[in-house]
Every structure is written in C-alpha cells, then in structure tokens.
C-alpha cells in the first residue's frame, strides 16, 4: 500500500466554509462587472440582477450552486500521441507545463539578454518535447513575427514539433476560433476534438471582479468546442486585491466562482480547472512578484478551495523574479514548486520563466525538468508493505552487517529512487576532471545536445498539408 497523499493544508474546514460563504455573498451583493451585452442578458435570463448602466451583474447563490453542480471533477488534456495524455483528477498526480508569453530570452550560446525571435521557437519546442518533466507545452512567440496571426503561426509550428498537449494563447477572439478549427483538423474532426481535446486555454478575469468581452467569448467558445479551460484568477495582493492574504484569497475564490457561472450555465459540464494564481505587489516598487513565500501559501489554500469544489487545480510551480538562472531563481522556483505539488496541484505552471514571466531560457527549462520530476516524485509517496518494510531482511543482515549485496537491495535498486539527470553527487576529483561544471553549465550542455539531436514525432504529411492550407486562408481572413 502507498503512503498517504501528502496534502499541505492551511485552511480548516470551517475556514473553507467561511470563504465559500463570503464569495456567495459577494457575488450576490457586490456582483461582477461584465463588459459584454449578451453576457449580461444571459446572466439576467438565468436570474442574476443586472444593471446595464454599470454593467454589473449580481449573481444569486442558487445560480452559483447550480453551476457548481455541473462542473466535471476530472478531464484529460489529450495529446496527439495518447501516451502523453495528462488526465487531471483531484488527488491525482501532478503534470506540468512551461510558462507562456515570454518576450525575452537569455541566449543559450552567448548568455546575452535579448528579444525572443522566430528563429528560437523551433528550438524551444524541440527541447520541451524532449523533456519528460514538461508534460505539455504553451507556445512561445518571436517578437520579430507579424502581430496579426502570430498566435496561429505559433500553433502551426507547435503541432509540427511536439505530440504533447498544447496550451493555447490567443490574441483575439477571431484567432481563437481559427485555432480551435486547426485543433479540430489535427484531432480528426470537431466531435473528435471534443472527445480528445488536444489543446487547452487559459482565460483570466481582470481583478477585481471584471470580466471583459473577450473573456466571456472565450469561456463560451471553450464550452462549445469542449476545450479545457483554466479559469485563471490572479488578484495582486495590495494592488488589484486586498493586502491581506485572506482577502486576496476571498477575492480570488469569488472570481473563480463567477467564471464557473459564466461557463457552466452556457455549457453545462464544460471542463475547467481552478487556476489559483494569487499574486502579490512589491509595495516598494509596484512590481508584481513571482517569488514570494506568501504566494505559495495563498496558492496552497486555493488548492484546498478547489478540492472543496471538487475540480482539478492548476498552480504556479517553478517561478521566479530572478533576472537569470542563478541561485535566487533556483531557490524561489524550488520552494514554489514543492509547495504547489504538495498542495495537490494537478498542473504546475511556469517552467522556464524568470523576471516576472518576461523571460524564458533553455537552461532554465532543463533545470525545471529536474525540479518538476523531483516534485512528481515527492507527491508519489512510497510503498509500505511487509516486503518493503523489510524486517526479514534486517534480521537476515543483522547488527553490524550491510545491505549492499543483499538480494532485497538488488530487487528494489531501480524502483525506489529518483534518477537525477543533472545534479552532481560524486567526488571533487571527478568533478574537476569533468570541467568543474555548475548546474547551469550542465543544463546548457544538455539543452545543446537535445536541440541538436532530438527528432520530434512529425505530423502525418497529409495533415500538415491540410493545416498549411487552412493557415494561409486563416491569415488572409485576419488581414481583412
């Protein structure tokens, strides 16, 4: 039998109830702003009190309760290659993805800080495709690419360079729909896409309590296509959310429930995740922080709320404010990721990212692959039974003996331990012989080898062709 799932808990059951009650009452009395005429009408039709002047919708408790009833407790982020599917189940194992939306990179060869370019994109996909600790992939964008259709082109390249699930980023509602159509081509049809959604999306209300028209459209479009959605709630404590951790959590939970209402009343059963991504403002500078122990604490409490509502949860994992892949980066991302994993996160988000999510680096991705796999291992726990407890073996070896050559050691040699690909544990002598490399040196070396040698599983030729034709038509339609 396995050990217990190690759940980190901050909230008591009574506190969870209190937060839930607080959100219900805020939704009913304060309400949300919905910058979407149809959305307001829709909410009114379902029983919300709507003030069209201020675009405010006050949502009664019974609507929220009804919406919560239809949220599925599990779903799968499907992959083009089914072996790489990521089933998200409350209490299940965590998966991970890179952070999306970086604008800059640290050049792998020269170490120079520079804009992320189109030429880098393929290398990033290859690398993330090869790394086992990156379960699915968010596209990266070249700053030198045309603005219109950039998201579509990036999805085309992603499909060609990885068979893992893909996490979309759309710049407009129009391009989002086009990208869902592209996904339908690869999945083999709209129905097939619904059954096995090979893409997913993140949408975030603007804190506090404001839903833009594009957000409402995206929530509904996801429901229509059956695309898994991260309802990403990220109030910035002290800025767009209360300064107190409890207050920020209260607001975050309220915004999540509002997202559930908009999604589920339109498309009951649409798959969604509680993406609890609390932020905190650095009160000295106004910057929003990625590395702060309180973020980990708030996120952990957010995961408890997700379990209370019985939905999968996505948290910030390997994340840092550091300017480079230095000690600060490793320190911040390791505690963030470990806290998130031990809080029951289904998805750990952020691999590769630094400097408030502006920078992604290949070395960092390789290091985060390791950090993620360590987190996976920590959550997995270990087996406890008569054979594993090994009383008989201890008796056999006896006081003063050793276990090295015992059959029991031989049997469990390879199944008990995390196998590091990057961390050094040997003698100083052999370390010096190997060039006295640091963790970052070894990550760089590994990244270079993968980029040179890794061959992603290509798209079938006919699919590639069909996609290309679709993309060129899509780009033309966007330019109009």
């Amino acid at each position: 039998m396995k050990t217990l799932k190690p759940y980190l808990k901050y909230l008591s059951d009574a506190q969870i109830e209190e937060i839930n009650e607080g959100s219900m009452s805020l939704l009913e009395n304060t309400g949300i702003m919905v910058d979407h005429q149809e959305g307001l009408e829709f909410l009114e039709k379902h029983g919300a009190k709507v003030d069209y002047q201020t675009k405010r919708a006050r949502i009664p408790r019974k609507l929220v309760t009804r919406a919560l009833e239809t949220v599925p407790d599990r779903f799968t982020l499907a992959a083009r290659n089914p072996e790489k599917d990521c089933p998200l189940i409350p209490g299940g194992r965590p998966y991970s993805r890179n952070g999306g939306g970086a604008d800059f990179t640290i050049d792998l060869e020269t170490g120079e800080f520079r804009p992320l370019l189109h030429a880098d994109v393929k290398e990033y996909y290859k690398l993330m495709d090869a790394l086992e600790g990156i379960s699915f992939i968010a596209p990266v964008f070249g700053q030198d690419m045309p603005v219109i259709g950039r998201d579509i082109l990036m999805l085309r390249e992603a499909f060609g360079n990885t068979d893992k699930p893909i996490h979309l980023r759309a710049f407009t509602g129009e391009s989002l729909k086009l990208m869902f159509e592209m996904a339908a081509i690869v999945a083999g049809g709209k129905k097939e896409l619904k059954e096995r959604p090979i893409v997913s999306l993140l949408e975030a209300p603007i804190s506090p309590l404001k839903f833009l028209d594009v957000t409402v459209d995206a929530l509904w479009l996801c429901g229509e296509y059956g695309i898994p959605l991260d309802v990403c709630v990220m109030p910035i404590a002290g800025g767009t959310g209360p300064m107190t951790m409890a207050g920020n959590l209260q607001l975050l939970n309220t915004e999540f429930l509002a997202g559930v209402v908009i999604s589920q009343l339109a498309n009951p059963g649409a798959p969604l995740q509680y993406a609890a991504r609390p932020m905190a403002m650095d009160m000295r500078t106004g910057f929003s922080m990625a590395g702060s122990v309180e973020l980990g604490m708030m996120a952990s409490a957010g995961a408890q709320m997700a379990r209370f509502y019985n939905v999968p949860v996505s948290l910030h994992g390997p994340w840092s404010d550091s300017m480079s892949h230095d000690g600060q980066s490793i320190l911040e991302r390791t505690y963030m990721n470990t806290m998130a994993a031990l809080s029951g996160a289904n998805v750990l988000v952020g691999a590769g990212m630094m400097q408030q999510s502006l920078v992604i680096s290949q070395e960092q991705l390789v290091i985060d692959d390791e950090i993620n796999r360590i987190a996976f291992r920590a959550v997995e726990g270990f087996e406890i039974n008569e054979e594993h407890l090994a009383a008989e073996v201890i008796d056999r070896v006896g006081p003063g003996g050793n276990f090295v050559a015992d059959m029991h050691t031989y049997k469990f040699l390879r199944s008990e331990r995390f196998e590091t690909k990057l961390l050094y544990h040997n003698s100083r002598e052999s370390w010096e012989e190997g060039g006295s490399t640091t963790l970052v040196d070894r990550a760089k070396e590994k990244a270079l080898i993968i980029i040179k040698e890794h061959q992603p599983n290509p798209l079938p030729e006919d699919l590639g062709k069909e996609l290309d034709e679709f993309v060129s038509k899509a780009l033309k339609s966007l330019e109009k």
Partner: protein
Amino acid sequence: MSNNFEQMQKDLYDGKFSEVEAATKTALDEGMGAQDILNNGLVAGMEIVGRDFKSGELFIPEVLMCARAMHAGLEVLRPLLAESGAASMGKIILGTVTGDLHDIGKNLVSMMLQGAGFDIVDLGTDVKPEQFVAAVRDEGADIIGMSAMLTTTMPSMKSTITALKEAGIRDKVKVIIGGAPVTSKFAEEIGADRYAPDAGAAVDTVRELLV
C-alpha cells in the same frame, strides 16, 4: 515658525491629513504667505517622503497617504496660490495603448504623479493614437505617458508618436513610455523621450523633464 513647519512635515510624513490641513490654516492665520507654507511646509515634507521612498524605507501606499496629507494642505492654499499666479507643476496625459487593457501599472503611475502634485488626465485603457493627439490639443499637456503590457500592443506607442508628428505637435510634448515588456532601447528606437521602469522612476523622470 520653523518649528511649526517641522511639525507639519512630520504630520505629513505620518499621513495625518486633518492635522496638516489645520496647520496650514493656522499658518495662514498667523500671517504666513501661501507660497512660503507650500515651499517650506508641504513641498519640503514631500521631499523627505521622496527620499525615504527611494531608499526603500517607505512603501507606495505610505507615500500615497503622505500625498493625501499634502493635498489636504494644498487645497487650503490653492485659491491664494491661484491669485498670486503660481502655476500648476505640470499636466500629464496618461493612457494604456490601444489593444491593451491592463491598467494597474498605469494607475500606480497616475497615483504617484498626483501625489507629487502634478495634474493628471487619465485616458484609461485601449487608447488610440488619435485620442492621445486630441488630448494633447485639448488639454495643453506637458507630457504624455503611455503604458503597454503586451509586446503585441507596443507598436501602438510608435504609431502615437508618428501621429503626434503628423499633427505637428510632437515638439509640444514630451513622451514617456513604460510597461512590463518595454525597455529603454525600445524607447530610443521609437523616438520616445524617456523610458521609466517603475512608478517611482516615472515621477523622477517627469520632474527632470519639466525642470
């Protein structure tokens, strides 16, 4: 009298706005000049606040509380200062550029600039180049500050500068830009006057440009 100013500065530092307001009235009743109170009481007080903010001792909300206290005094003086012809410190137009709906950074800059005594015209989010141009014409501003959170919306900053040129008013205003993906290099490339990396730096930059 300098003792009174010391107390006024201390109250301002502690964000005690009713005390600062009362002290300003008392100082006027005692026959002191409005300009004198402004310079040696309120502005001198805010200079201490600015120094301690820059050294990291004060947090932004504390600075805003100090600014609120400063404004409580300033409101008392304003009619008198207007009479004597003491002009505003400067007018700044702010906006998040077209296509971009992120505004917490821009709002912070707005609050800090108002705190420092500047007049702000906030155009909000999703502001098109022609709206900036119209605002410059209508408001007679000294500076426009543009914010962008996304690399996809950054090109709109350049369009605004071009629109200002085409309208023949580029030399009438200074342009400052900021936002997460923006860099000083980008500011240089598009012909902006300055780049400010954070709200505190934005206030300093505005001061430098208007002196």
